[in-house]
């Protein structure tokens, strides 16, 4: 049922996230607020940032972010503040910790493992590769190819 409520909320007016009344007068601060909003998840939505969401809770968070910015917090300070109140779940870029190590370094590990695998495969096969053509053979081959064209 809760899921259904989500869906309905999504459906009743998907547009309209940031409202004109929420915006800060200072364009630099507002730009920072927008950038931060993209990093924060609307907790009652499916996979939407608070910048995209029109849920009331997202609007509250947007206001909170702007309040903290006006109060003089740094970007990291604002995120810290929001995480202290709402937990790590609000971060769309999960923190690097022990339990997210696999998430953050898994792809890199796969790249390295795949790279080593490809290297070993090529190395092993290179040992058996036959001698390359000599310059003379190369020239003869070229002559044959050109004649055919």
């Amino acid at each position, binding site marked *: 049922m809760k899921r259904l409520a989500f869906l309905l909320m999504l459906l009743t007016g*998907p547009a309209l996230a940031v409202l004109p009344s929420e915006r800060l007068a200072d364009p630099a601060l507002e730009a920072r607020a927008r950038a931060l909003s993209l990093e924060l998840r609307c907790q009652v939505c499916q996979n939407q940032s608070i910048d995209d969401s029109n849920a009331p809770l997202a609007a509250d968070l947007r206001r909170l972010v702007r309040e903290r910015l006006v109060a003089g917090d740094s970007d990291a300070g604002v995120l810290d503040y929001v995480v202290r109140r709402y937990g790590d779940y609000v971060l769309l870029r999960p923190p690097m910790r022990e339990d997210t190590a696999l998430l953050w370094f898994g792809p890199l590990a796969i790249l390295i493992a795949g790279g080593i695998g490809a290297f070993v495969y090529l190395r092993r*096969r290179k040992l058996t590769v036959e001698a390359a053509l000599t310059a003379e053979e190369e020239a003869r081959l070229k002559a044959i190819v050109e004649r055919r064209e």
Partner: protein
Amino acid sequence: MAPELGHIALILALCVALIQSVLPLAGAQARDPALMATAKPAAYAQFFLVALAFGCLIYSFVVSDFTVENVVRNSHSAKPMLYKVSGAWGNHEGSMVLWALILALFGAAVAAFGRNLPPGLKARTLSIQAMIGVAFLAFIVFTSNPFNRVFPPPPDGQDLNPLLQDPGLAFHPPLLYLGYVGFSIVFAFAMAALIEGRVDAAWARWVRPWTLAAWSALTGGIALGSWWAYYELGWGGWWFWDPVENASFMPWLVGAALLHSAIVAEKRDALKTWTILLAILAFALSLVGTFLVRSGILTSVHAFAVDPKRGVFILAILIIAVGGSLALYAWRAPMLKAGGLFQPISREGGLVLNNLLLGTATATVFIGTLYPLFLEAIGGAKVSVGPPFFNATFVPLMVPLLIAVSFGPMMGWKRAELGAVFQRLWVALALSLGVILLTLAVDKTRHVLAALAMGLAAWLIFGALIEWAERVKLFRAPLATVWSRAVNLPRAAWGMTIAHAGLGLMVLGITGSTAWQTEVIRLVRAGDAFDVAGYSFVFKGTQRQEGPNFIATRAVFEVYKNERLYAVMTPEKRLFPAAGSTTTEASIRTNLLADLYATIGDPEGAGQPGAAGPPAFLTQAGQDVAWTARIYHNPLVPWVWLGALVMMIGAGVSLTDRRHRVGAPQRLPQAALPTAAE
């Protein structure tokens, strides 16, 4: 009558699929031509029966037969005809019938067009294909029957989710499924090859057209979905790293890797076991995607199936298919003979790099999409993995891949010299540097990364064009020669040039819309004028609009460029009374270089969503009402989808290569020839 006929057809199709999954395979094992020959009529029959069932379902929707539960829940008598028809697959049960239909379609296509296939391979392939058919037809018949009746029938239906009532979304699922399910045939070919214990250049050549067709359709399906999100969701964005998007993106990435590795398998008889593995993975990820979407494990806009019983069934299919195929792979793959040799710096080496990066990119998307579920399942913390994660991990993998794209085709098979390749590419390099400098000079925001990305796009486009120019000897031979070389150039080579250039166009679109988007969010009253990215907007007020099954408020903006009327933009908000929900219709004006994009929100002071009574946007219509307007200027954004279209065309052109149709060169059927291609 039609629902019963459809239901019976589904059950019969299941029976036929059961027979087809046993007899031809047994025939191939026993070398019995009569048993093997059952594959063809069975594949035709299965397709006919599923098509009949699908037709019955569509008929029920078209005539608004409200004795059928599925029609009641997803249709309405006042709905436009297009959406009555597309409503048939805009729901869980119907979309599974579409899945089965496309599965059967591919099976029948192999039966019809696979004349040059060895009978054993063909019989085994069609049997494997039928096994997948059995799984999905059983799933439909036992858990997702689209033909359930209701009594007493309600006077009218509950209407289709209005977000789905859209031409883009009417065709998005069929295209997407053509891609998803198309990989099933590649999978079936891979399984058949493993059972036979033989993979050769001929096999790779038979598989490539099917991979091309599936990948091309998947490209179209994803692009259409992304375009729909862009104009329908009203955020001006086109890719959200939503799990459902990722679900279709993963098979696309692996499919792209498979396309490339199959070339090595075909031309050089190398990377064969790897190609088989990719064929398995492409379909496995299609199943994972189906599972993620159908099980409701990720509830999002797309996930209209919320029923755990179905989830368990699909999970079982997934485990049996993936587990079984990987076990067969582990058992048989070591028996496959390694083929042609090559140096690390060679065309093959470049394609290995392509596969390494595409494979890692797929793994990144896979881990990112499933990690929150995984962590929750083992009782860990709740985390969110969103766009910032994917941008930080996926994009760095794409940059080296895209740089490598222009090098690859320039390299010779077996052994190449980077110096010589550079020499042939210096024009592309110079042009790309020129584009970077030009971008920096013109761009007032001095966005360095964006300038570099523009250079990358230019590198892809010019790289593709130069490779083509070299092949046809442009500027280096008389025009007649160039013409005849261009005409005689294999279609596959044309296809590659087009697809790689399309990729470059897409990078152009991604860069432009990400780096230089202008956004204006403001309250507007009738008569207000304001500027967006050099265009002057005048808000003329709102009108009430009545559609077939909705009521709308339409806002009218006049847009002036250099004092002259450039466009009239009319974004809408619509209420669908039957479904009880509202949608936003963006108004988009494109000149192909940039989009103007306007949406209208609620009037000022409107209540929270969910308040009773008609929504504020319909009741407040006076002149003094202030409306929230969001206007975007999205530079280059059309090229995101046009680039995808060009890639599709490239794949399509490659598909027409007669070498794909004629089949293998004669010397190959014996296959065991050591390093035959030397």
